[in-house]
C-alpha cells in the first residue's frame, strides 16, 4: 500500500511543475500576474508531498518508485528518495514556491511573463527529477533538461546580445559537460553493469576497484564541474546573470549549479575516498573558492558579486566533498543547505534593490534602509548567515568545516588556508551586498526608492528567517534535514551535534579570525577591488575571454575545413570520386587475390574485329576531339558499335533499342551543350590534362581487369536457362527479350517506363519554365512564394 502511495505521490510531485508550466501562459493571459499565486501551488504541493515522506526518510528509510521505461535496455523511469534527495527536493520545491511568487511581483506587467513562468516551472520540474532520479538514464535526461530550460531562461531577455551569448555559453559548457557525463553513465551501465544509483551505492567498492575507474571518474567530474561552475568552467555562471533576477536567485542558490555538487555527493560513497578523488576535487575546489571570492569582491554590480560568491561557495563544497571524511561531508551538507537559503535570499534582495532603486551598481547605492526596511532586514538576516555568525545556519556550517580541516598536515593546512581566505572574502562580499546599499547617504541619482510589494520582500524574508530558525532549533534541523542528508552522502549513519552555542576551540578561534579578516576586507573593499582589478588587468586573459577565443577558433577552423573540402568545383568532386572508385577496385582486388589470370587471345570473327575497331576509333576520337560537340558525336560512334555487337550476338531488339537510345542521347546532349554555353573545348595545358587522363585510364583499367576476373569464373546459367525454357511454354512468347521485359522482369520495365516518363517531364519543365519566367518580369525574393 505504502509503495503505491509513494508512486502516486512521487509521480504527482514530479509532474506538477510540468503541468503548471503547460498552464502558465494560459493562466497569465486570463488573470495576469496573479497567476503566480495559482502556479505557486504546484511547487507548494510538491513540497508537501516530499514533506510527507520525511518521517520515513529521516529515520534512514528510502522511498523508491518507478516503472519500466525502455525494457530493451533495462532503462527504468525510477526514483529514489533518501536523505540527500529529500533535502534537495525540499529546497527546490520550497524555494521554488517563493521564487514563483517573487516572479509574479518582479516581472509584473512584463509581456512575456507567462512564458517566463512556464520556463521556470519546467526548470523546476527538471531539477526535481534530477535529484530524485534513481535510474542513471532517467537522471541524465533530467540533467540535460535543466541545461535546455536554463538556456531558455538565461536567454529570456533575448533581444540583448549579452543574454544570447550567456545562454549559448551556458548551453555549450553545461551541455558539453553533460555529454561527458552521458559517456560516464554509459560506461557505468555497460561495463560495470550498474543501472541505477541504488545499484551503484550497493556495489560498494566495485567502481573504485574497477579498471574503468579512471575514465568514469574523469567523465563524471567533467559533468559535475561544468554544471557546478568549477574553474575554469565557471565562466558561464556570471554571464548567466543576464537572466532576470528570479532566475539568478533560483538557478544559483538551490538548483542548477548545485546539480554538479549533488552528483558528487550522490556518487561519493561509490567513487569517493580514493587518492585521485581526495587530490583532484580539493585542488579544483580550493582554486575556485579563492578565485571566485576575489572576483566577487572586485565586481561592482551586486548581482555579479553574488554570482562570484556562488562560484566560490561551489568551490568550497567541492573541496569538502573531495576531502571525503565524515566531518568534511557534514560540513559540506550544512554549508549547502545554508547556502541555498542565504544565497537565494540575497539574490532576491539584489533584485528588490534593482526594482526599488533601478540600479545594481554598488557605487551608486546607499541609504536605502529607511525606504526599504523589510528588504534591509531580510538582507541582514541572509548576510549574517553567509558571514557565518551565530545563531545562523551559516555558523553551524563554518564551525563544522573548520572542525573537519583542523589537522596538522600540509594537505589540511593548505585547504584550511584556502577556506579561511575564501570565507573572509565572502564575508566581506555578503556585507557589501547586504549592508552598503542600505547605509550611508542616499545618492541623488536614485529617484523615489521604494519597497516592492508583498511578493517581492516575502521570499527573502522567509529565507532569512529560516536561516535563523534552523540554527535555533538545530536538533530538529539535524534530525530532519542535515542528518539524513549527511548519512546518505557518507554512506552510513552519521550523528550531527553542532549547535549555535560557540565552544571555545580551534574552530571557533578560526571562525573569529575569519570574521575579523572579513571586516578588514569589507572596510578596505575599494582598495581590494582596485588591486584585484589591476592584477587581473595585468594578466589580461581570463577563461571568459578564452571561451570566446575557443568559439572563434572553432568557427574559423570550421570555415577553413569546409571551404577546403567544399570547393564548389565539379571537376574536383569528380576527381575525388574517381580516385575512390579506382581504389575500391584495385585495393580489395589485390588484397583479396582476385586478379584475373592472363587472358587468352579471344577467337573473334572478322565482323566482330571490325566493330571493335570502330569502337576504339570512337573512343580515340572522343579523347582527341577539338571541341565538345565532336566529342559527343564520337561518343555516339562508340554506342553504335555496342549496338552492332548486340546485332552480331543475335539480339536485334536490344541492338535496335541501343541505336535509338544512342541517337537520342547524342541529339539531346548536343542541344543541352549548346544551351549551357560552356566553353566549346578543353583549353587546359597538357600538364593539367595528364593527371586526369592517368586517373581515367586507371579507373577504366580497374573495371576492365575486374571484369576479366569475373568472366574467368564459372558462370551459373540458371536464370537464362529458365528464361529460355519457359518463355514460350508458360509466358506464350517466342521473343525471349520481350518476354523478359514484359513478363519475367516486368516490374523492372515498369520502373524504367516511369523513368522515361519522368525524364520527359523533367526536360519539359527545364525547357519551359524558363520561358515562363521570362514573361514574369517582377523579381521574386521569396523562394516559396505562391
Amino acid at each position, binding site marked *: 500500500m505504502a509503495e503505491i502511495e509513494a508512486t502516486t505521490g512521487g509521480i504527482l510531485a514530479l509532474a506538477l511543475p510540468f503541468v503548471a508550466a503547460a498552464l502558465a501562459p494560459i493562466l497569465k493571459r486570463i488573470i495576469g500576474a496573479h497567476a503566480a499565486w495559482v502556479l505557486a501551488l504546484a511547487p507548494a504541493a510538491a513540497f508537501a508531498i516530499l514533506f510527507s515522506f520525511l518521517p520515513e526518510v529521516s529515520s534512514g528509510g528510502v522511498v523508491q518508485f518507478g516503472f519500466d521505461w525502455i525494457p530493451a535496455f533495462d532503462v527504468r523511469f525510477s526514483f529514489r528518495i533518501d536523505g540527500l534527495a529529500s533535502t534537495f527536493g525540499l529546497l527546490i520545491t520550497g524555494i521554488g514556491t517563493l521564487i514563483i511568487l517573487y516572479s509574479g511581483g518582479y516581472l509584473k506587467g512584463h509581456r512575456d511573463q507567462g512564458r517566463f513562468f512556464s520556463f521556470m516551472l519546467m526548470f523546476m520540474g527538471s531539477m526535481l527529477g534530477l535529484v530524485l532520479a534513481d535510474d542513471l538514464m532517467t537522471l541524465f535526461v533530467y540533467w540535460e533538461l535543466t541545461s535546455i530550460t536554463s538556456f531558455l531562461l538565461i536567454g529570456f531577455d533575448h533581444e540583448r546580445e549579452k543574454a544570447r551569448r550567456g545562454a549559448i555559453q551556458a548551453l555549450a559548457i553545461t551541455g558539453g559537460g553533460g555529454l561527458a557525463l*552521458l559517456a560516464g553513465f554509459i560506461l557505468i551501465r555497460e561495463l560495470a553493469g550498474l543501472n541505477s544509483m541504488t545499484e551503484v551505492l550497493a556495489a560498494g567498492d566495485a567502481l573504485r576497484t574497477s579498471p574503468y575507474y*579512471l575514465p568514469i571518474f574523469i567523465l563524471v567530474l567533467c559533468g559535475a564541474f561544468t554544471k557546478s561552475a568549477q574553474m575554469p568552467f565557471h565562466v558561464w555562471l556570471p554571464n548567466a546573470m543576464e537572466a532576470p533576477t528570479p532566475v539568478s536567485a533560483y538557478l544559483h542558490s538551490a538548483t542548477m549549479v548545485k546539480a554538479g555538487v549533488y552528483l558528487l555527493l550522490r556518487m561519493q560513497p561509490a567513487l569517493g575516498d580514493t587518492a585521485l578523488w581526495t587530490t583532484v576535487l580539493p585542488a579544483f575546489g580550493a582554486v575556485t573558492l579563492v578565485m571566485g571570492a576575489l572576483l566577487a569582491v572586485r565586481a561592482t554590480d551586486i548581482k555579479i558579486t553574488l554570482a562570484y560568491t556562488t562560484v566560490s561557495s561551489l568551490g568550497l563544497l567541492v573541496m569538502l566533498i573531495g576531502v571525503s571524511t565524515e566531518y568534511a561531508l557534514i560540513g559540506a551538507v550544512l554549508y549547502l543547505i545554508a547556502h541555498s537559503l542565504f544565497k537565494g535570499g540575497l539574490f532576491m534582495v539584489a533584485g528588490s534593490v534593482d526594482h526599488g532603486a533601478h540600479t545594481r551598481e554598488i557605487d551608486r547605492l546607499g541609504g536605502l534602509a529607511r525606504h526599504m526596511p523589510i528588504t534591509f532586514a531580510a538582507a541582514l538576516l541572509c548576510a549574517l548567515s553567509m558571514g557565518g555568525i551565530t545563531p545562523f545556519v551559516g555558523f553551524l556550517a563554518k564551525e563544522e568545516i573548520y572542525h573537519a580541516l583542523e589537522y596538522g598536515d600540509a594537505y589540511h593546512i593548505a585547504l584550511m588556508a584556502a577556506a579561511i581566505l575564501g570565507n573572509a572574502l565572502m564575508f566581506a562580499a555578503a556585507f557589501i551586498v547586504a549592508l552598503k546599499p542600505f547605509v550611508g547617504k542616499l545618492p541623488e541619482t536614485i529617484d523615489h526608492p521604494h519597497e516592492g510589494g508583498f511578493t517581492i520582500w516575502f521570499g527573502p524574508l522567509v529565507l532569512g528567517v529560516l536561516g535563523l530558525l534552523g540554527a535555533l532549533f538545530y536538533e530538529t534541523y539535524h534530525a530532519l534535514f542535515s542528518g539524513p542528508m549527511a548519512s546518505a552522502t557518507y554512506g552510513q549513519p552519521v550523528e550531527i551535534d553542532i549547535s549555535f552555542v560557540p565552544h571555545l576551540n580551534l574552530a571557533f578561534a578560526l571562525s573569529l579570525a575569519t570574521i575579523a579578516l572579513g571586516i578588514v576586507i569589507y572596510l578596505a573593499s575599494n582598495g581590494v577591488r582596485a588591486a584585484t582589478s589591476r592584477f587581473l588587468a595585468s594578466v589580461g586573459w581570463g577563461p571568459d575571454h578564452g571561451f570566446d577565443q575557443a568559439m572563434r577558433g572553432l568557427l574559423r577552423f570550421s570555415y577553413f575545413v569546409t571551404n577546403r*573540402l567544399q570547393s564548389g568545383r565539379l571537376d*574536383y568532386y569528380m576527381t575525388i570520386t574517381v580516385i575512390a*572508385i579506382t581504389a575500391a577496385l584495385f585495393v580489395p582486388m589485390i588484397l583479396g587475390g582476385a586478379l584475373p589470370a592472363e587472358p587468352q587471345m579471344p577467337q573473334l570473327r572478322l565482323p566482330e574485329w571490325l566493330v571493335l575497331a570502330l569502337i576504339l576509333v570512337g573512343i580515340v576520337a572522343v579523347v582527341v576531339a577539338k571541341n565538345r560537340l565532336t566529342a559527343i558525336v564520337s561518343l555516339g560512334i562508340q554506342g553504335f558499335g555496342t549496338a552492332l555487337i548486340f546485332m552480331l550476338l543475335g539480339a536485334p531488339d536490344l541492338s535496335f533499342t541501343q541505336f535509338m537510345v544512342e541517337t537520342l542521347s547524342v541529339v539531346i546532349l548536343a542541344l543541352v551543350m549548346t544551351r549551357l554555353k560552356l566553353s566549346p573545348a578543353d583549353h587546359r595545358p597538357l600538364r593539367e590534362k595528364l593527371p586526369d587522363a592517368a586517373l581515367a585510364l586507371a579507373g577504366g583499367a580497374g573495371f576492365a581487369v575486374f571484369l576479366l576476373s569475373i568472366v574467368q569464373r564459372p*558462370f551459373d546459367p540458371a536464370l537464362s536457362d529458365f528464361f529460355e525454357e519457359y518463355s514460350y511454354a508458360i509466358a506464350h512468347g517466342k521473343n525471349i527479350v520481350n518476354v523478359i521485359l514484359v513478363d519475367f*522482369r516486368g516490374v523492372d520495365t515498369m520502373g524504367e517506363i516511369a*523513368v522515361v516518363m519522368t525524364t520527359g517531364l*523533367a526536360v519539359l519543365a527545364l525547357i519551359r519554365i524558363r520561358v515562363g519566367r521570362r514573361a514574369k518580369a517582377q523579381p521574386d525574393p521569396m523562394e516559396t512564394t*505562391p
Partner: protein
Amino acid sequence: MMHGALAPSDYLVIAPVAICLLFGAALLMMRKRIDWQPWLAIPGFLLLFAADVLLLLKVAAEGPQTMMMGNWKPPFGIAFTVDMLGALFVTTAGFVGVASAIYATFSMSRTERRYGFFPFMFLMMGGVSGAFLTGDIFNLYVWFEVLLMGSFGLLILGSEREQLDGATKYCFLNLVATTLFLITTGYLYGVVGTLNMADIAQKAARLENDGAVLTIAVLYLVAFGMKAAAFPLNFWLPASYHTPRFVVSALFAGLLTKVGVYALIRVLLMLFPPQHADLATLISWVAALTMLVGAFGALAQSDMRRLLNYFVIAGIGTIFAGLALTGGEGGASATVSAASAATQAGGTAPMTGMAAAAAPLVPGSDSLVIGLSGAVFYALHSIVIMTALYLAAGTAARISGSSSLRAMGGLWRARPGLAALMLVFLFAVSGLPPFSGFWPKVILVRGAFQAGMPWLGAVILLTGFLMTVASARVFALAFWRNAPEPAVAGGPNAGFAPAGEPSPMLAMLPLLILAVFAVVAGVLPQWLVALTDVAARGIVDPAGYVGSVFGGVS
C-alpha cells in the same frame, strides 16, 4: 505457381509502389487542372501512408512478407520482400510524404505545380518505396533510377541559375554512383548467377574468402556511400540541397540519403556479412570523418539551409557509426576489429583496454545488433527531423524573407509557435533529450563502447556537442535576435501573404505532425526500439527473410 491464391492483404507488399505510380501518372494526365492537384495528391499520400502502416503491422505480426512478381518462382522472377527494416523505412517515408504534401500545397507556385511538382513527388516516393520493398538487387537499381529522375525533376523546378548549377552537380555525381551500382550488380551477377537478394545471401555465404566478393562489397560501399553522402563522397549534397524549394530540400534531406543507407544495410550487412566485418574499420573511419565534416560544416555556415545540409551529413555519419560495429560476442572478426581499434585509439589507451575486455562483461548482447538497431532508429529519426527542419526553416524564411542568418530575426516574438517547434527540432537533431535524437545516440555510444571502439562513441558525442552549439547559434540569431532590418522594403512580410493565402495555422499542421514524432519517440521510445531491434536481428540473421522468399523448404 508456387504459392496458393493470395489474400487481398498480401498485395500490401506492392501497394505503396502501385499507389505512387498510379497517382503520379493520373496527376500528370490532369496536369493542367492545377487546382485539383493538391486535393488529389493529399488523399493519395494519405492512402500511401495507410498502406505503409498496414504493411508494417502485417510484418510486425507475421514476419517478412514476399510476393513474387508475375508469379514466377524465386529466384527467377522479381521478388518484393518486406522485412521489418524495409517496412519501417517505407512507413517513415510515407509519414514525411504526407507532411510534405500538405506543406507543398501552401508553398508551391502554380507554375511549379503545372510542371509536375506532385507527379514528380509521387514518382520519387514510388522510387523510394520500391527501393525499400524490393527483394531483387537489379530491381533495387531500377527504383534508384526512378527516385533519381523524380528527384532531378523536383530539383530543377524553378530553373534558377543557382538551381541549375546545383542540379548539374547533383545529377553528375549521382549518375556516377548509380552507374557504379549497376556495374557492380553486373559483376555480382557474374559471380553468383542470381539477382534475388535472398538467393545471393545464401550463395555469397559460401564465398567467404573470395577476393571478388570482397571487391564487389567495397564497390557497393562506395556506390551507396556516395548515395548516402558519406565522406569523402558527400560533395554533391552541400552543392545542391539548398537550391530547390524548401519542401523539396525537406524531402531530399529526409529521404534520399537514407535510401543509400538502407541499401548499404541491405546489401553490405545482409548479403556480405564477412566482408562487412573486414570493412568495419574502414566504415568506422568514414563514419567519424563524415560526422565531423558535417558538424564543422554546419558551424561554418551562415545560411540556415546550407547549415541544415551539413546536419544531414552529420546524421549520415552517425548512422554509419552504427554500421561500423561488428559482433561483440567472441567472433574472430570482433576481436580483430577490437584490436585494430586499440591501435587506432592510441591516446585513449586505458579506455580501449577496458573496452576490449568488455565483451564478456555483458553477456547475451551483440554489438552488431545494437549498432544496427541504433543506426536504424537514428535513420528513422533523421528522416523525420531533417524533413521537419527544412520545412520549419522554409516557413521561417518565408516570414523573414531570407534564409540567411544575417538577415533573419525576431521570430521568437513574431511566431512563438513556429519558434517552439523549431526549438524541438533543433534539440532533437542535436540529440538532446527528451526528443527523438537522444535514444539512438545512446544506443550507438553504448554499442561503440561494447564493440571496443570508445573513440567512435566519443566522436558521436563530440558531434552532438558541435551540433548543439550550431543549433543554439541558429536559434539565437534567427529567432531570439531582433530582425536586423527589414530585408525587403515594406517590412519583413512584404511580398508575402498575397490575397487568398491560406491560413498559416494550416501550414503549421505538417510541422506539428512531425513534432509529434520527435516527442513521442523521445519520451516513449520502447515501441520503436523494439521494432528497430527486430529489424536489426532480421538483417544479422536473415533466415526469416530467406524463408519468406523460398518458403520453409529451402
